[in-house]
Protein backbone atom coordinates (compact mmCIF):
# COMPACT_ATOMS: atom_id res chain seq x y z
CA UNK A 1 0.00 0.00 0.00
CA UNK A 2 1.30 3.46 -0.75
CA UNK A 3 -0.25 5.64 1.88
CA UNK A 4 -3.90 5.12 1.03
CA UNK A 5 -6.29 5.24 3.92
CA UNK A 6 -9.05 3.16 2.37
CA UNK A 7 -11.27 3.06 -0.68
CA UNK A 8 -12.97 6.32 -1.51
CA UNK A 9 -16.49 4.89 -1.42
CA UNK A 10 -15.91 4.07 2.21
CA UNK A 11 -14.68 7.52 3.00
CA UNK A 12 -17.31 8.86 5.34
CA UNK A 13 -17.93 5.79 7.42
CA UNK A 14 -15.54 6.75 10.12
CA UNK A 15 -12.34 5.34 11.50
CA UNK A 16 -13.40 1.78 12.12
CA UNK A 17 -10.77 -0.89 11.47
CA UNK A 18 -10.49 -1.75 7.82
CA UNK A 19 -9.52 -4.87 6.02
CA UNK A 20 -5.90 -5.14 5.05
CA UNK A 21 -4.67 -2.06 6.93
CA UNK A 22 -2.96 -2.89 10.20
CA UNK A 23 -4.83 -4.61 12.96
CA UNK A 24 -7.36 -1.83 13.46
CA UNK A 25 -7.25 0.73 16.19
CA UNK A 26 -10.61 0.04 17.81
CA UNK A 27 -9.31 -3.07 19.51
CA UNK A 28 -6.73 -1.11 21.40
CA UNK A 29 -8.31 2.21 22.17
CA UNK A 30 -11.57 3.65 23.24
CA UNK A 31 -13.00 7.08 23.90
CA UNK A 32 -10.73 8.09 26.73
CA UNK A 33 -10.48 11.86 26.47
CA UNK A 34 -13.46 14.17 27.08
CA UNK A 35 -15.16 15.43 23.97
CA UNK A 36 -13.54 18.38 22.33
CA UNK A 37 -15.48 21.46 21.34
CA UNK A 38 -15.64 20.52 17.67
CA UNK A 39 -16.82 17.00 18.48
CA UNK A 40 -19.62 18.38 20.65
CA UNK A 41 -20.58 20.73 17.88
CA UNK A 42 -20.61 17.88 15.37
CA UNK A 43 -22.93 15.89 17.60
CA UNK A 44 -25.21 18.89 17.93
CA UNK A 45 -25.31 19.30 14.15
CA UNK A 46 -26.05 15.62 13.73
CA UNK A 47 -29.01 16.03 16.08
CA UNK A 48 -30.29 19.02 14.13
CA UNK A 49 -30.03 17.17 10.83
CA UNK A 50 -31.82 14.15 12.26
CA UNK A 51 -34.58 16.45 13.48
CA UNK A 52 -34.93 17.89 10.00
CA UNK A 53 -33.65 21.32 11.04
CA UNK A 54 -31.34 21.68 8.07
CA UNK A 55 -31.10 25.46 8.12
CA UNK A 56 -29.99 25.55 11.72
CA UNK A 57 -27.61 22.67 11.09
CA UNK A 58 -26.03 24.54 8.21
CA UNK A 59 -25.65 27.62 10.35
CA UNK A 60 -23.89 25.68 13.09
CA UNK A 61 -21.79 23.87 10.55
CA UNK A 62 -20.31 27.21 9.53
CA UNK A 63 -18.63 27.32 12.93
CA UNK A 64 -17.07 23.92 12.34
CA UNK A 65 -15.82 25.09 8.97
CA UNK A 66 -14.25 28.16 10.53
CA UNK A 67 -12.54 26.01 13.16
CA UNK A 68 -10.90 23.56 10.77
CA UNK A 69 -10.63 25.48 7.56
CA UNK A 70 -7.09 26.79 7.85
CA UNK A 71 -5.62 23.57 9.07
CA UNK A 72 -7.48 21.61 6.39
CA UNK A 73 -6.25 23.97 3.70
CA UNK A 74 -2.68 23.62 4.94
CA UNK A 75 -2.82 19.83 4.88
CA UNK A 76 -4.50 19.73 1.49
CA UNK A 77 -2.08 22.23 0.02
CA UNK A 78 0.96 20.38 1.31
CA UNK A 79 -0.45 17.20 -0.11
CA UNK A 80 -1.57 18.49 -3.48
CA UNK A 81 0.79 21.42 -4.05
CA UNK A 82 -1.89 23.26 -5.99
CA UNK A 83 -4.08 25.99 -4.58
CA UNK A 84 -7.16 25.35 -6.69
CA UNK A 85 -6.98 21.60 -6.16
CA UNK A 86 -6.48 22.04 -2.42
CA UNK A 87 -9.37 24.49 -2.24
CA UNK A 88 -11.68 22.06 -3.97
CA UNK A 89 -10.50 19.17 -1.83
CA UNK A 90 -11.27 21.13 1.33
CA UNK A 91 -14.69 22.14 0.07
CA UNK A 92 -15.49 18.59 -0.94
CA UNK A 93 -14.40 17.30 2.45
CA UNK A 94 -16.65 19.72 4.32
CA UNK A 95 -19.62 19.00 2.07
CA UNK A 96 -19.05 15.28 2.49
CA UNK A 97 -18.85 15.67 6.24
CA UNK A 98 -22.16 17.51 6.31
CA UNK A 99 -23.93 15.02 4.10
CA UNK A 100 -22.64 12.10 6.18
CA UNK A 101 -22.90 13.77 9.57
CA UNK A 102 -25.46 11.18 10.66
CA UNK A 103 -22.73 8.52 10.49
CA UNK A 104 -20.41 10.42 12.82
CA UNK A 105 -19.83 8.64 16.11
CA UNK A 106 -18.47 10.37 19.16
CA UNK A 107 -16.15 7.45 19.84
CA UNK A 108 -13.51 9.38 17.93
CA UNK A 109 -12.71 13.07 17.83
CA UNK A 110 -14.34 14.97 15.02
CA UNK A 111 -10.91 16.15 13.90
CA UNK A 112 -9.79 12.58 13.28
CA UNK A 113 -12.93 11.77 11.30
CA UNK A 114 -12.74 14.93 9.25
CA UNK A 115 -9.03 14.63 8.54
CA UNK A 116 -9.50 11.11 7.35
CA UNK A 117 -12.15 12.22 4.88
CA UNK A 118 -9.96 15.09 3.74
CA UNK A 119 -6.91 12.91 3.23
CA UNK A 120 -8.92 10.36 1.28
CA UNK A 121 -10.11 13.14 -0.99
CA UNK A 122 -6.55 14.39 -1.43
CA UNK A 123 -5.32 10.90 -2.26
CA UNK A 124 -8.06 10.50 -4.86
CA UNK A 125 -7.05 13.78 -6.41
CA UNK A 126 -3.40 12.83 -6.47
CA UNK A 127 -4.27 9.61 -8.22
CA UNK A 128 -6.44 11.41 -10.74
CA UNK A 129 -3.70 13.94 -11.33
CA UNK A 130 -1.03 11.30 -11.89
CA UNK A 131 -3.30 9.69 -14.47
CA UNK A 132 -3.85 13.05 -16.12
CA UNK A 133 -0.15 13.97 -16.01
CA UNK A 134 0.70 10.94 -18.09
CA UNK A 135 -0.88 12.71 -21.02
CA UNK A 136 -0.38 16.37 -20.31
CA UNK A 137 2.51 18.57 -19.26
CA UNK A 138 1.34 21.00 -16.60
CA UNK A 139 2.90 24.24 -15.54
CA UNK A 140 4.77 24.20 -12.26
CA UNK A 141 2.81 27.16 -10.97
CA UNK A 142 -0.22 28.65 -12.64
CA UNK A 143 -0.29 32.33 -13.48
CA UNK A 144 -3.23 32.75 -11.12
CA UNK A 145 -1.17 31.28 -8.31
CA UNK A 146 1.71 33.57 -9.21
CA UNK A 147 -0.56 36.57 -9.08
CA UNK A 148 -1.97 35.48 -5.77
CA UNK A 149 1.47 34.94 -4.30
CA UNK A 150 2.70 38.28 -5.46
CA UNK A 151 -0.40 39.97 -4.07
CA UNK A 152 0.02 38.22 -0.75
CA UNK A 153 3.72 39.02 -0.51
CA UNK A 154 3.19 42.73 -0.92
CA UNK A 155 5.56 44.62 -3.18
CA UNK A 156 7.19 42.32 -5.71
CA UNK A 157 10.72 41.30 -4.91
CA UNK A 158 11.73 39.01 -7.74
CA UNK A 159 14.87 37.72 -6.09
CA UNK A 160 13.16 36.89 -2.82
CA UNK A 161 10.27 35.28 -4.61
CA UNK A 162 12.56 33.25 -6.80
CA UNK A 163 14.59 32.03 -3.83
CA UNK A 164 11.48 31.14 -1.86
CA UNK A 165 10.06 29.36 -4.85
CA UNK A 166 13.23 27.33 -5.35
CA UNK A 167 13.39 26.47 -1.66
CA UNK A 168 9.77 25.35 -1.62
CA UNK A 169 10.19 23.36 -4.79
CA UNK A 170 13.18 21.60 -3.24
CA UNK A 171 11.18 20.81 -0.11
CA UNK A 172 8.23 19.58 -2.11
CA UNK A 173 10.48 17.37 -4.20
CA UNK A 174 12.04 15.93 -1.05
CA UNK A 175 8.64 15.23 0.51
CA UNK A 176 7.53 13.65 -2.75
CA UNK A 177 10.44 11.24 -2.54
CA UNK A 178 9.12 9.80 0.70
CA UNK A 179 7.45 6.44 0.69
CA UNK A 180 3.63 6.72 0.57
CA UNK A 181 3.01 5.84 4.20
CA UNK A 182 5.90 7.92 5.43
CA UNK A 183 4.62 10.89 3.48
CA UNK A 184 1.11 10.45 4.84
CA UNK A 185 2.27 10.17 8.44
CA UNK A 186 4.67 13.06 8.08
CA UNK A 187 2.03 15.30 6.51
CA UNK A 188 -0.48 14.57 9.22
CA UNK A 189 1.95 14.99 12.11
CA UNK A 190 4.04 17.82 10.78
CA UNK A 191 1.51 19.96 8.94
CA UNK A 192 -1.73 18.64 10.37
CA UNK A 193 -0.65 18.85 14.02
CA UNK A 194 -1.90 15.32 14.64
CA UNK A 195 -0.42 13.16 17.35
CA UNK A 196 0.85 9.69 16.41
CA UNK A 197 -2.14 8.32 18.24
CA UNK A 198 -4.56 10.31 16.12
CA UNK A 199 -2.74 9.30 12.96
CA UNK A 200 -3.02 5.75 14.12
CA UNK A 201 -6.77 6.20 14.46
CA UNK A 202 -7.00 7.74 11.00
CA UNK A 203 -4.88 5.24 9.19
CA UNK A 204 -5.46 2.07 11.15
CA UNK A 205 -1.72 1.68 11.56
CA UNK A 206 -0.25 0.67 14.87
CA UNK A 207 0.81 3.68 16.94
CA UNK A 208 4.38 2.49 17.21
CA UNK A 209 4.42 1.93 13.44
CA UNK A 210 3.29 5.52 13.00
CA UNK A 211 6.15 6.70 15.19
CA UNK A 212 8.64 4.68 13.18
CA UNK A 213 7.29 6.07 9.91
CA UNK A 214 7.43 9.59 11.27
CA UNK A 215 10.99 9.18 12.44
CA UNK A 216 12.14 7.67 9.14
CA UNK A 217 10.37 10.35 7.13
CA UNK A 218 11.89 13.20 9.13
CA UNK A 219 15.36 11.66 9.05
CA UNK A 220 15.17 11.05 5.31
CA UNK A 221 14.01 14.60 4.70
CA UNK A 222 16.87 15.92 6.76
CA UNK A 223 19.26 13.88 4.69
CA UNK A 224 17.71 14.97 1.41
CA UNK A 225 17.67 18.63 2.33
CA UNK A 226 21.14 18.58 3.82
CA UNK A 227 20.03 19.38 7.33
CA UNK A 228 18.37 22.67 6.39
CA UNK A 229 15.14 23.39 4.55
Amino acid sequence: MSGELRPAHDVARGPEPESGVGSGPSKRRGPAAPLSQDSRLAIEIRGLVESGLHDEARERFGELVAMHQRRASRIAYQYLRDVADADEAVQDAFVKVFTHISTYREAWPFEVWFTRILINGCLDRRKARSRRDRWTVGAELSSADEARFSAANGPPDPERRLLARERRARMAAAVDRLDGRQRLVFMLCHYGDCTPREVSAMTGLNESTVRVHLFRAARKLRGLLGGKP
Partner: protein
Amino acid sequence: MIRRARHLPEQRLYDCYYAERTGEAIDPRTAEHLADCSACGARYTEISRFLDALRAEGDAESQDAFTAERLQAQQQQIARRLEHVGHLARVISFPAQLVRRSISSTTAPTAPRWIAAAAAAGLFVGVALGASYEWDWRNQFARPVLTGDANVRLSPIATRGSGSNDVAADDAFLSELELALDRPRTRELIAYDALTPHVRGVRDQR
Protein backbone atom coordinates in the same frame (compact mmCIF):
# COMPACT_ATOMS: atom_id res chain seq x y z
CA MET B 1 28.73 6.29 41.89
CA ILE B 2 25.74 7.02 39.60
CA ARG B 3 26.25 5.58 36.16
CA ARG B 4 25.26 7.94 33.37
CA ALA B 5 22.77 6.62 30.82
CA ARG B 6 23.89 6.18 27.22
CA HIS B 7 23.05 8.83 24.66
CA LEU B 8 19.48 8.94 23.45
CA PRO B 9 18.68 7.22 20.15
CA GLU B 10 17.74 9.54 17.32
CA GLN B 11 14.17 8.31 17.16
CA ARG B 12 13.64 9.30 20.77
CA LEU B 13 14.71 12.83 19.94
CA TYR B 14 12.19 13.05 17.10
CA ASP B 15 9.49 11.58 19.33
CA CYS B 16 10.35 14.17 21.91
CA TYR B 17 10.08 16.99 19.39
CA TYR B 18 6.64 15.96 18.14
CA ALA B 19 5.40 15.28 21.65
CA GLU B 20 6.48 18.73 22.71
CA ARG B 21 4.82 20.34 19.71
CA THR B 22 1.48 18.58 20.04
CA GLY B 23 1.39 19.05 23.79
CA GLU B 24 1.86 15.41 24.69
CA ALA B 25 3.72 14.44 27.82
CA ILE B 26 7.44 13.78 27.36
CA ASP B 27 8.96 10.78 29.04
CA PRO B 28 10.45 12.21 32.29
CA ARG B 29 13.65 10.18 31.98
CA THR B 30 14.20 11.46 28.44
CA ALA B 31 13.55 15.02 29.55
CA GLU B 32 15.98 14.60 32.40
CA HIS B 33 18.62 13.17 30.11
CA LEU B 34 18.21 16.02 27.67
CA ALA B 35 18.66 18.50 30.44
CA ASP B 36 21.82 16.76 31.71
CA CYS B 37 23.56 15.61 28.53
CA SER B 38 24.91 18.46 26.46
CA ALA B 39 25.62 16.26 23.43
CA CYS B 40 22.04 15.00 23.29
CA GLY B 41 20.79 18.50 24.00
CA ALA B 42 22.76 19.81 21.03
CA ARG B 43 21.44 17.06 18.77
CA TYR B 44 17.92 17.78 19.92
CA THR B 45 18.36 21.49 19.26
CA GLU B 46 19.63 20.78 15.78
CA ILE B 47 16.70 18.51 14.97
CA SER B 48 14.24 20.99 16.42
CA ARG B 49 15.73 23.80 14.39
CA PHE B 50 15.45 21.83 11.16
CA LEU B 51 11.88 20.69 11.77
CA ASP B 52 10.78 24.13 12.97
CA ALA B 53 12.21 25.72 9.84
CA LEU B 54 10.50 23.13 7.68
CA ARG B 55 7.21 23.80 9.38
CA ALA B 56 7.63 27.57 9.21
CA GLU B 57 8.33 27.40 5.50
CA GLY B 58 5.28 25.20 4.94
CA ASP B 59 3.10 27.53 7.00
CA ALA B 60 4.31 30.58 5.12
CA GLU B 61 3.68 28.87 1.83
CA SER B 62 0.14 27.82 2.68
CA GLN B 63 -0.61 31.24 4.15
CA ASP B 64 0.53 32.84 0.94
CA ALA B 65 -1.67 30.49 -0.99
CA PHE B 66 -4.70 30.73 1.30
CA THR B 67 -5.13 34.35 2.14
CA ALA B 68 -7.92 35.56 4.41
CA GLU B 69 -9.96 36.55 1.35
CA ARG B 70 -9.57 33.15 -0.18
CA LEU B 71 -10.62 31.44 3.03
CA GLN B 72 -13.63 33.73 3.22
CA ALA B 73 -14.54 32.86 -0.35
CA GLN B 74 -14.07 29.19 0.45
CA GLN B 75 -16.45 29.48 3.40
CA GLN B 76 -19.06 31.12 1.23
CA GLN B 77 -18.65 28.51 -1.45
CA ILE B 78 -19.10 25.73 1.09
CA ALA B 79 -22.21 27.46 2.42
CA ARG B 80 -23.61 27.73 -1.10
CA ARG B 81 -22.96 24.09 -1.78
CA LEU B 82 -24.56 23.08 1.50
CA GLU B 83 -27.73 24.97 0.62
CA HIS B 84 -28.47 22.30 -1.95
CA VAL B 85 -27.90 19.45 0.46
CA GLY B 86 -31.12 17.97 1.78
CA HIS B 87 -33.28 19.54 -0.91
CA LEU B 88 -34.96 17.28 -3.41
CA ALA B 89 -34.10 17.78 -7.02
CA ARG B 90 -36.53 20.21 -8.64
CA VAL B 91 -37.98 19.48 -12.04
CA ILE B 92 -38.47 22.64 -14.03
CA SER B 93 -41.72 22.58 -16.00
CA PHE B 94 -41.54 24.15 -19.43
CA PRO B 95 -44.54 25.93 -20.97
CA ALA B 96 -46.79 23.30 -22.56
CA GLN B 97 -47.26 25.22 -25.82
CA LEU B 98 -43.51 25.56 -26.37
CA VAL B 99 -42.94 21.89 -25.67
CA ARG B 100 -45.74 20.88 -28.05
CA ARG B 101 -44.37 23.10 -30.80
CA SER B 102 -40.84 21.83 -30.37
CA ILE B 103 -42.04 18.24 -30.36
CA SER B 104 -44.09 18.73 -33.50
CA SER B 105 -41.25 20.51 -35.26
CA THR B 106 -38.70 17.85 -34.38
CA THR B 107 -40.95 14.93 -35.24
CA ALA B 108 -42.31 16.30 -38.54
CA PRO B 109 -41.72 13.63 -41.22
CA THR B 110 -40.74 16.03 -44.05
CA ALA B 111 -39.48 19.57 -44.31
CA PRO B 112 -41.74 22.18 -45.95
CA ARG B 113 -41.85 22.03 -49.75
CA TRP B 114 -40.53 25.52 -50.33
CA ILE B 115 -37.23 24.55 -48.66
CA ALA B 116 -36.74 21.72 -51.13
CA ALA B 117 -37.70 23.94 -54.05
CA ALA B 118 -35.28 26.67 -52.96
CA ALA B 119 -32.48 24.18 -52.54
CA ALA B 120 -33.10 22.73 -56.01
CA ALA B 121 -33.23 26.17 -57.60
CA GLY B 122 -30.05 27.21 -55.85
CA LEU B 123 -28.29 24.10 -57.06
CA PHE B 124 -29.45 24.67 -60.62
CA VAL B 125 -28.37 28.28 -60.69
CA GLY B 126 -25.02 27.40 -59.16
CA VAL B 127 -24.32 24.69 -61.73
CA ALA B 128 -25.39 26.95 -64.62
CA LEU B 129 -23.21 29.83 -63.47
CA GLY B 130 -20.27 27.56 -62.88
CA ALA B 131 -20.58 26.06 -66.34
CA SER B 132 -20.81 29.44 -68.05
CA TYR B 133 -17.77 30.77 -66.21
CA GLU B 134 -15.79 27.70 -67.09
CA TRP B 135 -16.75 28.09 -70.72
CA ASP B 136 -15.68 31.75 -70.68
CA TRP B 137 -12.38 30.89 -69.05
CA ARG B 138 -11.59 28.31 -71.65
CA ASN B 139 -12.43 30.71 -74.42
CA GLN B 140 -10.23 33.41 -72.96
CA PHE B 141 -7.11 31.60 -71.86
CA ALA B 142 -7.09 27.95 -72.67
CA ARG B 143 -7.40 28.30 -76.44
CA PRO B 144 -4.25 30.39 -77.11
CA VAL B 145 -2.14 28.16 -74.98
CA LEU B 146 -3.40 25.04 -76.67
CA THR B 147 -3.36 26.29 -80.26
CA GLY B 148 -0.30 28.43 -80.78
CA ASP B 149 3.14 29.51 -79.77
CA ALA B 150 2.85 30.91 -76.30
CA ASN B 151 6.11 32.86 -76.35
CA VAL B 152 5.13 34.75 -79.40
CA ARG B 153 1.69 35.58 -78.08
CA LEU B 154 2.79 36.69 -74.68
CA SER B 155 5.51 39.05 -75.88
CA PRO B 156 4.11 40.88 -78.87
CA ILE B 157 5.99 44.16 -78.23
CA ALA B 158 9.39 42.52 -78.00
CA THR B 159 8.92 40.85 -81.36
CA ARG B 160 6.96 43.55 -83.07
CA GLY B 161 8.03 44.34 -86.64
CA SER B 162 10.39 41.42 -86.87
CA GLY B 163 8.38 39.73 -89.66
CA SER B 164 5.00 39.18 -91.31
CA ASN B 165 4.23 36.23 -89.07
CA ASP B 166 4.79 38.36 -86.03
CA VAL B 167 2.50 41.07 -87.28
CA ALA B 168 -0.19 38.50 -87.89
CA ALA B 169 0.31 37.16 -84.41
CA ASP B 170 0.00 40.65 -82.96
CA ASP B 171 -3.19 41.18 -84.84
CA ALA B 172 -4.58 37.93 -83.57
CA PHE B 173 -3.68 38.89 -80.01
CA LEU B 174 -5.28 42.29 -80.33
CA SER B 175 -8.42 40.87 -81.82
CA GLU B 176 -8.66 38.47 -78.93
CA LEU B 177 -8.42 41.37 -76.55
CA GLU B 178 -11.12 43.13 -78.47
CA LEU B 179 -13.33 40.13 -78.24
CA ALA B 180 -12.82 40.06 -74.57
CA LEU B 181 -13.69 43.72 -74.23
CA ASP B 182 -16.80 43.34 -76.29
CA ARG B 183 -18.37 41.09 -73.68
CA PRO B 184 -20.82 42.59 -71.18
CA ARG B 185 -18.86 44.93 -68.94
CA THR B 186 -18.71 44.91 -65.25
CA ARG B 187 -19.86 48.20 -63.82
CA GLU B 188 -17.11 48.39 -61.23
CA LEU B 189 -14.42 48.06 -63.93
CA ILE B 190 -15.68 50.84 -66.18
CA ALA B 191 -13.48 53.43 -64.48
CA TYR B 192 -10.39 51.27 -65.03
CA ASP B 193 -11.43 50.74 -68.59
CA ALA B 194 -11.56 54.46 -69.19
CA LEU B 195 -8.04 54.91 -67.89
CA THR B 196 -6.41 52.20 -69.98
CA PRO B 197 -5.66 52.55 -73.75
CA HIS B 198 -8.09 50.83 -76.09
CA VAL B 199 -7.15 48.28 -78.70
CA ARG B 200 -8.70 50.33 -81.43
CA GLY B 201 -6.61 53.32 -80.49
CA VAL B 202 -3.43 51.25 -80.54
CA ARG B 203 -4.35 49.77 -83.88
CA ASP B 204 -5.14 53.20 -85.37
CA GLN B 205 -1.77 54.51 -84.23
CA ARG B 206 -0.07 51.66 -86.06
